[in-house]
Each structure stands twice: as structure tokens, then as C-alpha cells.
């Protein structure tokens, strides 16, 4: 097996393990930490169904951000929706035969990279141009954007400037998945692109990228507004209480 193939094969196994393991650890932590008090930001839904809708609007449309700041919303949405299409398009390198819907979005996925990059550059510009955002930005905030921009740029270069051997690339990843290693094309652009992606996967569970799983556990957004005893919403013999808080009742 060629040297770079071995390096990248091991790198992606490690990155995947850290991403999945790290995220599982964080998610488990969020899930197991109690929410002792009802703190939904009101007005909040009074039913589970309503909470699911609220969360959907938050995740799919960035509802709160839209109310908050149109510039951040536009750039953030361009980036995230672009990233979503780009990621979906990349599924073609991991599926054989390629799923029907992945084929369907292929053309959109290709142009989505431009939206993604535009969004990232817009967000990055704000970190320099808006004094308030400049004040709250630290080195890692800039590096995170640099990493994502570099991933987008190297990816787009392979699409629009210098094509890489995607047939061999697909063989490489399918080989990784089925433990039947195939050689990785040694195109410098591709090697850089993949190394950056692996870096992103590794830092995901130890960085602010935790906002992705975190939003689902945010008590101000995922709680039902039914704290008080109230006809039709909560019986008078029921209450929302965390295990550690229930312990207090036993001692006094």
C-alpha cells in the first residue's frame, strides 16, 4: 500500500472515532445533566408537539437569529445551508449505488459551495469590521473560519480548476468502509482538502462546534411551558423535579 494511503486511512479511522466517540460523550453528558427548573424562553409552546415545531423552526430557519440580526442570519444561513447541500452531495463518494436523492441534488450541491464560502467570508468580515464582534473574537474564532474557508476553497478548486481522480477517491473511501483498502490518489489539493476535513472532525467535539448538538438540549428552547399545576396542562399532584432536588425534600 502507498505511504499516503496508509497515513490517510489511519487518519480517517482516527478522526471518525474521535468525532463519533467525542460527540457521543458530550451528548450523553447533556442528556444526563438534569434541568431542575423550567426555563423556556416565553412565549413557549404548551405541548410537546409545539416544542418539536419550535425546535424545527430554530434549526431549519434560524428563527431567533432572524429576529436578532439580518446580516448574521444571511451569512450564517448561506454558510449552513450551503454546507448542508455540499455534505449531502459528498454522500456520492460513500454510497454505491449512489442514492436517488443524492443524484438529484448534485447540481445544487456544486454551486452551494459558493454560497458556503460567501457566508463564511461574510461572517469573517464581521469579526474585523464590527467593533462589538471584534471585541468578542479570539484566535480560535478566526482559525475556525480559516479552516472552513480553506476546506471550501480546496474543494471548489478540485471541482472547477484542477479535477482530481474522484473514481479512485470513491474506491478509497468505500475501501475504508468495507475494510478493503484501495490506493488514494496523491493529488496535493485532495490531500490538503482531506487533511483539513479530518482536522475539523477531530476538533468538532472539543470546540464551539458543539452548538450543533447543543441547540437540541437548550432548555430555553426545548422545554414545554407547563410548570405550574394547571387544568389541562399539569395535574395538581404532579411536579417537574430533578433527582438532586428531590433529595432536598427528604432531608427537611
Amino acid at each position, binding site marked *: 500500500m502507498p505511504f499516503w494511503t496508509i497515513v490517510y486511512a489511519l487518519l480517517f479511522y482516527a478522526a471518525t472515532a474521535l468525532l463519533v466517540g467525542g460527540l457521543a460523550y458530550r451528548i450523553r453528558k447533556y442528556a444526563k445533566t438534569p434541568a431542575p*427548573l423550567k426555563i423556556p424562553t*416565553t412565549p413557549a409552546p404548551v405541548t410537546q408537539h409545539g416544542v418539536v415545531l419550535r425546535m424545527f423552526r430554530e434549526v431549519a430557519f434560524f428563527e431567533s437569529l432572524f429576529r*436578532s440580526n439580518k446580516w448574521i442570519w444571511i451569512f450564517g444561513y448561506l454558510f449552513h445551508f450551503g454546507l448542508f447541500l455540499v455534505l449531502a452531495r459528498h454522500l456520492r463518494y460513500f454510497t454505491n449505488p449512489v442514492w436517488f436523492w443524492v443524484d438529484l441534488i448534485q447540481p445544487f450541491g456544486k454551486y452551494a459551495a459558493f454560497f458556503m464560502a460567501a457566508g463564511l467570508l461574510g461572517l469573517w468580515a464581521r469579526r474585523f469590521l464590527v467593533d462589538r464582534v471584534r471585541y468578542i473574537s479570539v484566535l480560535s474564532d478566526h482559525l475556525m473560519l480559516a479552516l472552513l474557508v480553506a476546506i471550501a476553497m480546496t474543494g471548489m478548486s478540485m471541482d472547477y480548476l484542477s479535477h482530481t481522480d474522484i473514481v479512485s477517491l470513491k474506491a478509497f473511501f468505500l475501501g475504508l468502509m468495507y475494510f478493503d483498502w484501495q490506493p488514494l490518489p496523491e493529488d496535493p489539493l485532495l490531500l490538503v482538502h482531506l487533511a483539513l476535513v479530518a482536522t475539523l472532525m477531530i476538533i468538532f467535539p472539543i470546540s*464551539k462546534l458543539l452548538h450543533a448538538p447543543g441547540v437540541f*438540549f437548550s432548555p430555553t428552547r426545548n422545554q414545554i411551558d407547563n410548570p*405550574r399545576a394547571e387544568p389541562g396542562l399539569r395535574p395538581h399532584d404532579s*411536579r417537574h423535579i430533578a433527582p438532586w*432536588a428531590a433529595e432536598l425534600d427528604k432531608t427537611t
Partner: protein
Amino acid sequence: VADFEIPQLKEYPIIPKIHEGVMAHSKPFVAKAEFQEQLGFPGELIDNWQQVAIEKMGELSGKYRSLQVFLDACVKCGACTDKCHYYLGTSDPKNMPVARQDLYRKVYRRYYTFAGKYFPKLVGATDLTREVLDDWYSYFHQCSQCRRCSVFCPYGIDTAEISMAAREVMDAVGVGQKYCNEIIGKVYKIGNNLGLPEPALADTLEGLEEDIEEDTGVAVKLPLDQKGADVLLITPSADFFAEPHVDGLMGYAKVFHEAGISWTLSSYASEAANFGMFIGSYENMRKLSLRIREAALELGAKRIIFGECGHAWRVAYSFLNTLAGPFDFLDPNYPVPQHILEFTYDLIQRGAITLDKSANDDMVLTFHDSCNVARASRMGPMPGGQFVIPREVIKASCNHFYDMPQDTIHDATFCCGGGGGLLTDDLMELRVKGALPRMEALKYVVENYGVTHMAAICAICKSQFSKVLPYYGFRMDSIVSVHQLVSNAIVLGSKQ
């Protein structure tokens, strides 16, 4: 005369450029040892405070999912940076919600995250030094826990949760705030924030009964510790004597009188406000809440109704059942607790009370949504009822009502500037500056609609505005209670 610059009211709200450190000097008085110890906290800064503080931070992230998620999830997008009234009024960047959180987050990162442990500079993590603690004391007492930032955060990060945690950590190492901790001590000892003992309270209520009778000719009662009354009314102790609060209390009494429902106040639980929330202490919040349960049991009440008070209503509506429930001994046909506005609104809907709107014709009114009512509670069965019900009661009581601009009301409302344990004279500069966004919105309706009075439903808002309005050229008495309007308008004896 103020020894600081009073902000100018502008035609259009402007987001100020940042001015670093301009509010670093603002700090409330530190609690004395006796008051700290009363609440189970060390009397003064302990020797191994760093170690204890760091351990406490770990304990709190393990007890509160909100804290754990909020510390991890922030991406520093900047959406919250122009949402805090204290930032808008002071331009100190540490009053931007994200920067305030970062005072805590940078320490959390240093001791509890991989990146902060091994690459502190990269992620802006810092050791917990004396300077950091001083910054905490200053800026976590420049947050009124109003939750406006949490409305606009894409992840719902609520700075209130973080400032509560920071205050709890500071209490755990012996650096508590005088105003909050003394007041909590008074409730334990006497029953209310003002330290008004039973005889004085009875006397005050008697005086109010005389006032009402003199004014209206009707003998409206304000009963105290009356066993067997249907309703136990829990109201902020400011309602017993402060202006315009007391006019609201007389309004409640008249409404109960007209409804023909027996009710009582309790001298043991003569306080609705629960300052345990301000200092982030579940245990103190619980102990204060249990007094209400005990009073309800002792008096044999069937319902609990809360008077006009913002943070109190949050603790009552959102936390009381958790802290002091279950309330299976109360009438299951009514929510526990209920807000006095829900009660009055229901009577109006059913035509059970008569209101003469013209009694308030000397006023043109607007309404200030209290932050904790707006963003941390509800009234009535529908989400958003906390905006509708107070306005409907006001409109039923007067002929002239205009709302302030959309981005300053409902869940986008601005805090009065004195909430969250900051309503103390040692923070006057902060209070005046923090009121700026509300004052600008008020100015708009004063100039465009001739508004003369602003109604509020929170004891803190009422006290804060009474004090701060004159700084901006408004009359001190242009703040009124909602039930003061009801009190003026209600036609006594119309249903007998």
C-alpha cells in the same frame, strides 16, 4: 444631581461604539459576615477560594443542563451584542451578553475543557485570579437577569443562568452582595423583604381599609391571617406602602370585594419576591418558597394568587410547583398559582365587575412589559397571554392606551434597569443608564401620542421608574400600577 453623566435620549436608538472599562468601577456593597452566614455562606473571602470556586463551577455544570450547554454552545456570532439594556446604556463591552458570559466561560474553559487546559491562549481561557473575581463581582452585578439576550440567541443561551451561577460561586467563597443577602435574611427572620413585622403589617392594612372607605364609602377589607379564606394572596411587600404599589394593592382588595370571594394575606408569607433566584441559590429559593406552602396549609386556603411582581411571578409561575409543590391540597379547578391579572381579567370577561373607564380620563397610558413576566412566564392558557391580559385589563379600565414601539414591548421588552437584585442605591449609575432604552421608547409615545403615564406590573419596575424617570425629565408619578387603574375605574357595589 448625579455624579455621573446621564445619557441623552436620542430620536432613534443608536447602538453605541464600545468603550472598554467604563463601568468597571460599578460594584454593589459586599454583604457583611453575619448576613452571609445566615444563608449558609462563608462570612468573607476564604483562603482557598480559588479551589472552592473551581469545584463549585464543576458542581453547578453537573446540576444544571442549562449552564453546561450554554457554556459549550456559544459560537460568538455577535447576535446578542446589541441586545442588553446595560450595554446600550453604558457602552461597556463587558455588558454585551456574550462578553459577560465569557467572564465565566473563560474560567470554565481553563479548568474544564481540553482546549482550555492545553491551549488556553488559543481559546481565550484564563486562570481564576483575583482580577477575574473582581470583574465577576462588578459585571455579574450589572445583569438584571431579564433574558432579553436569550430571546435573540440562536441557541437560546440565557445570560441570566450564567450570572446566577457566578453569583452562587461568589457566595460559596464568601463574596456575596449586601442588598440581596440582607433581604433574604429579613424574610427568614420576619417574613418579608422590608422587615415589616405582623403588628405593623396589620396596622398598615387597617389604614388602607380606612383610606378606601373614606374615599368610596364602601367597607373594603384587607384581611390578614384569616383562616378558611378561599384565596391566599401573596404580594410583594412593597405593595404595603410604596407608591404607586399600594394603589395596586387597594385595587386587588376592591376586585376581591366586588367578586365576593374571601381572601387573606399571610404575615408569615408576606413576600412574593424571591431573591433566592437573584443569587442563583436553589436552596434559598426553595426555603423561601416553602413559606408560601406552609402559609397555604396553615390558613386552609383553596387557591394561591400572586400580586403584581415580575421576578416573583417568574418564581411563582415557573418554579413554585417544583420548589414547594405538589399542591394537591388546593382546588384543582384553578391553576396554582394564579396571577391577580388572570383573576381580574376573568371577572371582566364574565361581566362580574363593572369598570368606569372615564375614571382614568386624566391619563394617556402605555404599558411596560416586565421582563420576567414577558420572557419567563405566562398568563392564561395561551402562550403570549402575559402580553394580552394586562393590556386587556388596562383597556377595560381606561379610554386612552398606546403601545410603545414594537421592538421594545412583548418578549422584546427592555428591563426597567433595576431588576435581578440591582435595585439598590449603591448601583444608581447603572440603574439610570440601564433605563435608557425604555426611556427612549417612552419618549416616543409621549411625543407621538401624548402619553402621560406608564403602567407596570412589577414592584421592582415601579420602584425603579419612580426613582429614574426624573433623571430623564419625566415626572416621578408617571408610573402607575395596573390595578391602580382598576382601582380607579371599578364601580363598587354595582353587583350587589
